[in-house]
């Protein structure tokens, strides 16, 4: 532990309001967009389809005036993990059926393995880009509202979409709170010579060395949750009917976007299923 720096004051996502058409869509539509993306993604099991889907996301990013390279920045911290995964795949899938490209003694690399790896990378990049795009065009509170509005029709069947949204909103509020508490606790213990996770290979001892962090973190998080609950109750929150402050008006052409997304979902799923075996 050389220096300690935390992100207590960082908001989630990379929302920058450029006022583009995509930015101005209602949060429900944006959330519908990400749902469509995941549905098509699950229906698509080949590399070609995944890359095409990824390109659609990048096109949407250009349309929203968001730098596509910016969306892919998130891949960098995950690269070591992806590379280790690739090596493991190469080693353990060697010797499987199909034509071998290269053979090095017991190790042989097959076309199928290469394709599997490509799919892994393509999927990872597409998911990152899609989530990055959503958080780039949607402010933090809109995410909660988007989920609420999107799920509102389920209210007819008793689904508590408003409570669900408030839950998400409070959870988002707690990210900086918990980070801030952890930061303060790590600093307090480090100042007293605390050295975390570094002592030896004995797993029990190693786990024990984290106690000075986890015990107070859990206690403080619960305390702060209690304070927040009290503050909410003091302001008349009862879980009953309440009025939401912000409502969103559909902008011109938004209905078309929703229709387009629906058609895209149907076409995407069909494409994924039909070409699942025929395309690489």
């Amino acid at each position, binding site marked *: *532990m*050389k*220096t*300690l*720096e935390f*992100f207590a*004051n*960082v*908001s989630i996502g*990379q929302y920058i309001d450029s006022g583009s058409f995509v930015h101005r869509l209602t949060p429900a539509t944006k959330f519908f967009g990400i749902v469509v993306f995941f549905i098509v993604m699950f229906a698509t099991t080949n590399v070609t389809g995944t890359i095409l889907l990824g390109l659609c996301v990048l096109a949407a990013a250009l349309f929203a005036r968001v730098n596509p390279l910016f969306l892919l920045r998130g891949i960098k911290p995950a690269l070591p993990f992806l590379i280790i995964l690739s090596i493991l795949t190469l080693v353990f899938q060697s010797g499987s059926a199909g034509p071998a490209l290269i053979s090095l003694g017991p190790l042989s690399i097959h076309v199928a393995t290469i394709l599997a790896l490509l799919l892994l990378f393509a999927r990872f990049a597409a998911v990152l880009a899609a989530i990055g795009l959503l958080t780039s065009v949607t*402010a*933090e*509170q809109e995410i*909660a509202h988007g989920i609420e509005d999107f799920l509102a029709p389920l209210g007819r069947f008793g689904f508590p979409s408003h409570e669900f949204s408030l839950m998400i*909103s*409070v959870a*988002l*509020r707690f990210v*900086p*709170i918990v980070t801030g*508490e952890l930061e*303060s*606790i790590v*600093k*307090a*213990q*480090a*100042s*007293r*010579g*605390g*050295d975390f996770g570094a002592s030896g290979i004995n797993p029990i001892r190693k786990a024990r060395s984290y*106690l*000075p*962090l986890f*015990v*107070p973190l859990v206690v*403080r998080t619960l305390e*702060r949750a209690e*304070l*927040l609950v*009290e*503050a*909410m*109750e*003091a*302001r*008349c*929150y*009862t879980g*009953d*009917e*309440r*009025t*939401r*402050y*912000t*409502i969103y008006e559909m902008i011109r052409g938004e209905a078309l976007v929703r229709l387009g997304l629906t058609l895209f979902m149907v076409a995407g799923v069909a494409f994924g299923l039909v070409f699942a075996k025929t395309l690489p």
Partner: protein
Amino acid sequence: MSFIEFDSAVFSWPGSATPAIRGLDLRIDEGEYVAIVGRNGSGKSSLLRLMNGLRHVDSGSVRVDGLDASDPTHARALRSTLVLVFQSPPDQIVSTVVEEDVAFGPGNLAIGREEIRRRVDEALAVVGLEAERRSPPHFLSAGQQQRLAVAGALAMRPRCIAFDEATAMLDPPSRRAMLDLMDRLNAEGVTIIHVTHDMAEAARARRVLVLDEGRLVGDASPEAFFAGENASLAGFGLPPAVILARKLGFKPRICESPAGCAKLLAEGIEKGLLVPLPGDGPRLEAARPAGEADASPPAPGGSDAAFSLERLGYTYLRGTVNERRALSDISFVVPKGSIVALVGHTGSGKSTILQLLNSLALPSSGRVLSFGRDPREARTDLRAMRMRAPLAVQRPESALFEAYAADDVAFGPKNQGLSGRALVDRVKTAMDRVGLPYAGYRDRSSRSLSGGERRRLALAGVLALEPEALLLDEPTQALDPAGKATIMDLIKSFATRGGTVVFSTHSMDEAALADKVAVLRGGELLAFGAPADIFGKGYNESWGIGRPWAAEVAEILAGLGHGLGETPLAIEALARRLGSKTAAEAVDGAVAASLDAAATGATGGEGSR
């Protein structure tokens, strides 16, 4: 029928054997401005929670506006009539956008959206946060967050707002803004209930209630209350004006502000009842704090410095979109054995400096030397360095993790490799020094200690390292007056034993006890020097930090044509400048009585403001 009525109310927190409120009777009328004072744990918070139905009495009754507060069906009516504003600003924020947060309360009342909009606009205008309406609240300063909490309360259109130590975590300008807001709201007819540890704040109310162990032990106007030789005052402290009056041997009285007090003093001087000693300042001053003034010139240990900061700069999150410059070009030296106070607004860089001194952060530019060592040199053992000058972060008690008090204190020395007899000795010494005797406290559960005790236990954990220096980030924050005094005594006794202390504070009276004061704003060092300079000749109004009460009064007095020479920093010094007690006693008894009469008249006029 009164607005708020308590009748033999008894209340215990779940799981607690002793009741927090024991048979309390109380009447508060609509439009009153009431201060509630009392030690930590005296039942103040419980009282507020009973009023708006967050908690219910075990026996007796609480009625607000005729409604039974223990009846859950009244919760909504009750909580929109009497709204609470809590101590910690960030813990009251529910939403991720300012205006949404203001709308949270009225939204819960399920009233129309248009009406909510009107209320939000109005509430934001009252607290002056219109410009921030679309901002995420966690980017606001603590003072702004607290005003946001008040806006959230106002949007409920309440008839009463109860503030639960709502100024305790604010810097002086934010605190003043909050107090002015209370006055304004009260003038508009809102009942104000203000729980506070600050007696000068309590003196602003029209009525002071004192709680002790869940009982109401005092109920009077501030004038009558602070003037009386009330035994229950022990441990609560007194407003500075009252302390001054007592030192001067006059009947104590309440002054609303330093200006009001200076005016009374000027009257006294003009009538020849007080004898200012302008020329004689410095010598008297030196005689004041035993030994402290002698220790302030170059440290006894010679010329060597405990810390030296050379053009120090620090940037958070360098290279990201959230990059923020926290410090630039800070240079000063902390001599060994001295006490240095860091003052400035929230966000001025005080905490960052302390973390750099502790090597928790490394400089982005410039250099910091801690006992001659540069943390950026590769061979420096940062861990050893941190333990040599450990940092107690804000609210260090949050990091207590062991079930028993002594085990927690032992964490540091164990990390230094101590065990057995030596370890026990270290823990014992540290606990004894903070006033939590090892014999009585070692097996106490750290959760069962009071707020002040937990703070001291956390400090014992740092003292047990036997460090050469202590770095303390707002060590007295949110403690009651007795708790604050204990911490300041701890700092002084550590320095007397040759230790170095750097601490941050929002209280200029505490800063005046240091050998050197560093004034910070926006990450820059505005001034560094002895308190007598910083708050005297060298003082600059534009720093926005305020100054010790005595210095403020003396300065206004000088403006009225009664200069006192060198600026006094403590009330004792101010009293001496105005003529010692013996001088006051020399004044003919009849004349003194007439001053009392005159002053009482003046105070009466002021009280009706």
